[in-house]
Each structure stands twice: as structure tokens, then as C-alpha cells.
């Protein structure tokens, strides 16, 4: 039986039980239940190379019981996945070293057999399982069924959906959970109020998302971005120790005023994380125009390796942090028919 090079690196005894993942020049140690992460780098790890994407974002279905205008999915597209085929793919990626699967959609809780799939992944793989949901189907029974088997559950909150019941159900279930909040120009003035309200309801983790899409009214202007950065910096100080505030990678350098953990990391789309779509394609991220069909875990890994160049390109959708101006200042053109 071969030993992977990361297994030979000596780490402090307190971290000996964490799962190991080889990054390019570094060793990542990971606990799938809590998300505790230790990154070791130095001469001892310089020879390590990533062999699989660390995270797979799995849009297991495009179907959704909501119809949000900003959603990037084609909700008419039928899912090509079954619980069994999804498990087979993810088991293969787990064996290859992938640490996490993050289910999204569409709405993953409308996918038949989803809870059973999560439970099976928890029992039969080493993957950390995360779920992002709109919360409308997150009953107390579903929350309790998922809680022992997931690393975290994230609830996307919307203005026209009452997020209080799913948040209460999650708090009661003991699951680790956070809230995703899309920041638009209209929502910017109420960011502080909304975050403080969530904190009062038991939320300990809030991810502020940027918009990716063609609607210019949903993108923050430069001055609005600066305003958001100031608000986040202030909230971060006020809520330190109570609520973790996170910013998605697509904000890029627009959030320069906000202190970051380890500096500004480059976008890891296509390399560190990939998206598996409901029609069985591999894409760098949820908003990207590039995608490649695949049939199996081995096939996916082969594409991940051979298509590195195409998977590392910028998305054409406005809002991508890989473009210098986030694709927001392009001259307008009539759509081609």
C-alpha cells in the first residue's frame, strides 16, 4: 500500500488526529466536524502538490421552490444525479483526497433522498458535508436529521422569506450553521441592523455575498463597496467573539479596509474548489461560463488536472474577482441574437 508524502510529515501531537490534505507547498490538516483547519508550510512541505480539489461544490439539482431574480441557475434543467450516483462520485473524490462537499443548488432539500445521501456520506466517507439551503424546507425534523452528519448548514436569507423558523430549528438542533446574506445597493444601509438582528437570534456566522450577474442595479458601486468595507470592519470589532463575519471571495480587493486572516488569497475557483453541476459538468465556480462534461470521479480528476488553464480563467459574468474591474465597467452592447 503506497504512502502519500503528506502522511510522512511530523505535526504537533494535538493535530495528529486531523485529516491530511496536500496543497501546493503546504500541508492542510482538517477536522470535518468542526472545520478546524491547520495549515503547515515550510521546507518540510515544499515538495507537496495538490492531487484533488479540496472542496467540491455540488449543485445536485437546479430545482428550487423559490424564483429569485438574481439566481444564476436554469431551474428547468433536470438533474442527472440520483442519490446513488452522487454518492459514487463523492466516494471516488473522497478516496482521491477531497476534504469537503458543499451541497447547493437549486435547493438541495427538494432533491429526493437528500437527507439519506448526507447520512450515508457521513457514515461511509471521510468527507465534511455542508449544505446551503433557502431554509423553506428546513423543518425541525430535517434539521435534527442533518445535524449529526454535517459540518455546517448555511441558510440563504431573502427579503420575502421568513428565515426565523429555519434559524430557530437549526439553533435547536445543535447543528453548526451560518447565514448567507447577499449585499446589494438596496440592502447596504441595513447591513448592520440585519447582522445584529441575526446575532440576537442565535446566528454565530454571517457570510456577506456579492452579486454575480448581469443586472447592474444589483452590483455595489466603488463608493458603496467602500461603505460596506467600513461597515463590516466596524461590525467585526463590535461582534468579536460573538459572531464570525465572512466575505465571499468574489469581493476581491473591494474589501481592502477589512482585516483578513492571512492576507488576500487569490480566487481558488477551478483549483482549490470546483463546481459539479446538476447536468454532470465540471465548472470552476457557480457563475462561470466554462464547463466540461464528465462521467466519473476519475474523469473529473483528469479534467481538473488537464483543463487547469480553462478552469483558471475569469468568469464572463460581471462580478468576478479575477477581472481587474470585476467586469463592471465594460461598454454596454446589445445582446447578439
Amino acid at each position, binding site marked *: 500500500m503506497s504512502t502519500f508524502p503528506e502522511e510522512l510529515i511530523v505535526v504537533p501531537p494535538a493535530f495528529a488526529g486531523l485529516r491530511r490534505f496536500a496543497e501546493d507547498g503546504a500541508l492542510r490538516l482538517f477536522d470535518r466536524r468542526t472545520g478546524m483547519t491547520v495549515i503547515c508550510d515550510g521546507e518540510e512541505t515544499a515538495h507537496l502538490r495538490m492531487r484533488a480539489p479540496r472542496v467540491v461544490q455540488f449543485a445536485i439539482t437546479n430545482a428550487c421552490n423559490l424564483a429569485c431574480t438574481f439566481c444564476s441557475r436554469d431551474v428547468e434543467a433536470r438533474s442527472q444525479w440520483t442519490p446513488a450516483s452522487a454518492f459514487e462520485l463523492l466516494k471516488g473524490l473522497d478516496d482521491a483526497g477531497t476534504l469537503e462537499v458543499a451541497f447547493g443548488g437549486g435547493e438541495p432539500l427538494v432533491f429526493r433522498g437528500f437527507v439519506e445521501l448526507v447520512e450515508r456520506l457521513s457514515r461511509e466517507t471521510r468527507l465534511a458535508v455542508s449544505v446551503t439551503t433557502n431554509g423553506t424546507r428546513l423543518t425541525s425534523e430535517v434539521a435534527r436529521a442533518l445535524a449529526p452528519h454535517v459540518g455546517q448548514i448555511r441558510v440563504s436569507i431573502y427579503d420575502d422569506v421568513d428565515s426565523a423558523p429555519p434559524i430557530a430549528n437549526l439553533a435547536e438542533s445543535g447543528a453548526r450553521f*451560518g447565514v448567507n446574506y447577499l449585499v446589494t445597493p438596496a440592502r447596504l444601509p441595513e447591513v448592520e441592523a440585519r447582522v445584529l438582528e441575526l446575532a440576537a437570534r442565535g446566528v454565530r456566522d454571517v457570510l456577506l455575498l456579492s452579486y454575480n450577474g448581469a443586472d447592474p442595479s444589483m452590483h455595489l458601486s466603488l463608493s458603496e463597496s467602500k461603505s460596506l468595507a467600513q461597515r463590516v470592519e466596524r461590525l467585526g470589532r463590535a461582534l468579536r467573539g460573538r459572531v464570525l463575519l465572512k466575505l465571499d471571495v468574489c469581493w476581491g480587493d473591494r474589501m481592502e479596509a477589512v482585516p483578513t486572516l492571512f492576507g488576500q488569497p487569490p480566487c481558488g475557483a477551478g483549483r482549490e474548489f470546483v463546481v459539479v453541476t446538476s447536468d454532470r459538468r465540471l465548472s470552476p465556480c457557480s457563475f462561470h461560463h466554462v464547463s466540461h462534461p464528465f462521467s466519473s470521479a476519475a474523469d473529473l480528476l483528469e479534467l481538473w488536472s488537464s483543463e487547469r488553464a480553462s478552469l483558471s480563467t475569469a468568469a464572463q459574468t460581471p462580478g468576478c474577482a479575477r477581472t481587474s474591474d470585476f467586469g463592471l465597467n465594460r461598454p454596454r452592447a446589445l445582446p447578439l441574437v
Partner: protein
Amino acid sequence: MRIRIFQAFASNNSGSYTIVGSFRSAAAAEEVATLIGAVAQAHSAWFEQNQYAEDGESPLDAFAREHGLSEERPGREDAWPAHGDPPSVSAIGHQVLLHAPYTVTMPRLFGELFYKKGGRVDVEIDHAHEELAVEFQFWVPKLRFDDPEKSRRIDALEAELAPLLPALLVRDEYDKRPCIPHMFHAGFWGSRHLTVVMSKLVPGVASVRAVAERHGVSLGVRIFECAHGVTDPLASLRGSDRPWGRARVILWSIGADRVAALKAVREVRGCGLDEVKAAIEELPTEVLVDVDLAYAERAVLTLQQAGCDAERVFPTRTDTGET
């Protein structure tokens, strides 16, 4: 090799954990508090080192085995504080208080231990998001409830506590909500109480206990979680500006002028019309409870002037008045 550590997932939804147990004697409570304090300290140290690379018996495993407690693998994963202060414990008279300010939950075995040691669980509050209020009840051992010496000692205790309490209410730096003022108030049969929402529960309770001991006053605690979104969770205790005492006022009957009687009852009770109507629905009734003698006498006069038959009662042998 450089090592960087962070938590990638959402933090778990933490709250506070509190358990209070009562025992037959202060010595028994002290013994249990000492036992729990020692194992909590040892297990916290073990947990910090071993939560991600667990191997072998933990201090709580050994503790459970030694005391015949049934819980398997206690104090692991979410059942022990992963962040912030470790659990703290204190004996308060016949009671033991264990509190963890920020955890998902705590093992069940502490409650089991209470029963094994001949005590019982007074209250267990698991995963509280709201602040905890502590209601202290003061009494003086071996003195009758109406012994003037009892009142003198508790008066002195309250006088010493009053300037110390604001320091125990101070919130964390990030928490800009105003502090909730403490409240001295009365209980059944003239018992004297203090209810307070303290920023640090166990040290705060220990501070009050230390002052009480100096005055020869014993205390017991009841703990409850404050209601969500309420600016002043102790508002119900402040509902009356009536001076506390042991007098009561009985309304035997009302006179011919019902409206005048309603107004008088409303005046002495300081309540709304609906409450007044309900209060006089079935007579006789106690319209005032636990007020001081002078207030009760004034109330009786007011009621009598409205044509009511009212009487004040004062539950002492000598009826010599308030101290």
C-alpha cells in the same frame, strides 16, 4: 515550519449552560463543588490538547467510572466548551452552581452526580441564548422570620451590597446595551430577595455570598433565563413603587358607590381598571400583599373613605410595627 490555525466552518450555535443542585448540608455541597471543580479543570486541559486527536481515557471518563455515573464518553465534541472560559463552579450554602458561559451543551453526568450524592437538581438550563438572572433569597439561620435582628442583618447586607453591585453588572466591551439594574424585593412571608443579571455569573454569585457570610446571612439562589428582546427583564419586579413590608390589606366589602370603590382600589393598587374589576369580583380579597405598615394604613383609609370595609393585617405576635 509555520503553522496557522483557523476555524473554517460556521461556529456552532453556542449558548450558556447552567446547573444548580441542592444538598442536605453546606458540607455536602462544598464537597461536590470541589469534586466538580477539580475534574472540570482537568478535563478542560485534556480537551484543549486532545479534542482533535483523542486517545484513551479522559479525566471525565475516569470521574464517571469512579463515581458510578452512567454517561459514556462525557464531555467530548460539543459537550464541552471549545472556546472561551472553561466551566466554573461554586458552592453557595447548600447549593452547587456550575456554569459554562459559551458552549453547545455539557455532559449529563453532573446532574446524575447530584442525585448520587444525595442532592437534587434545582434547575438545569442548557443552551441559553439570553442572559441569566439570579434571584438570591436571604435568611438568617436560627432566627425567626419576625425577629428584628434578622431585618437588621439583612438591611446591613443590602446596604453593603448596593454600591458593589454595579461593578458586577458591567457588560462586555462589544455589548452596548445598558446594564439591567438589580432589584431588591420581597418574597413570601416577608422573605428578602435580590435579583440581578450579572456579567460573570459564578464570580458574581461568589461575591454576593462573601458579603452575606460577613453579615451572618445565608442565601439560596434560583436562576432563570431572561425573555428574549425584553429591555428590562426585571420590570415585573419593579412594577410597584409600594414600599415592601409584611402588612396586607383585606377588602371585605364595597359600599353603595361602586365607582368610588373602583377608583379607590385602583389608587391603592396602582393598576388598570380591568384588574381592579377582577380584583373585586369575589370578596373578600387581599388587595395589597407585602407592603409596609404605613402604606397599608393609608390604603385602608383611602378605601374606607370610598365606603369600603377594609382592614389591614400584620402577621406578628406583638404588632409593634415595621423596623
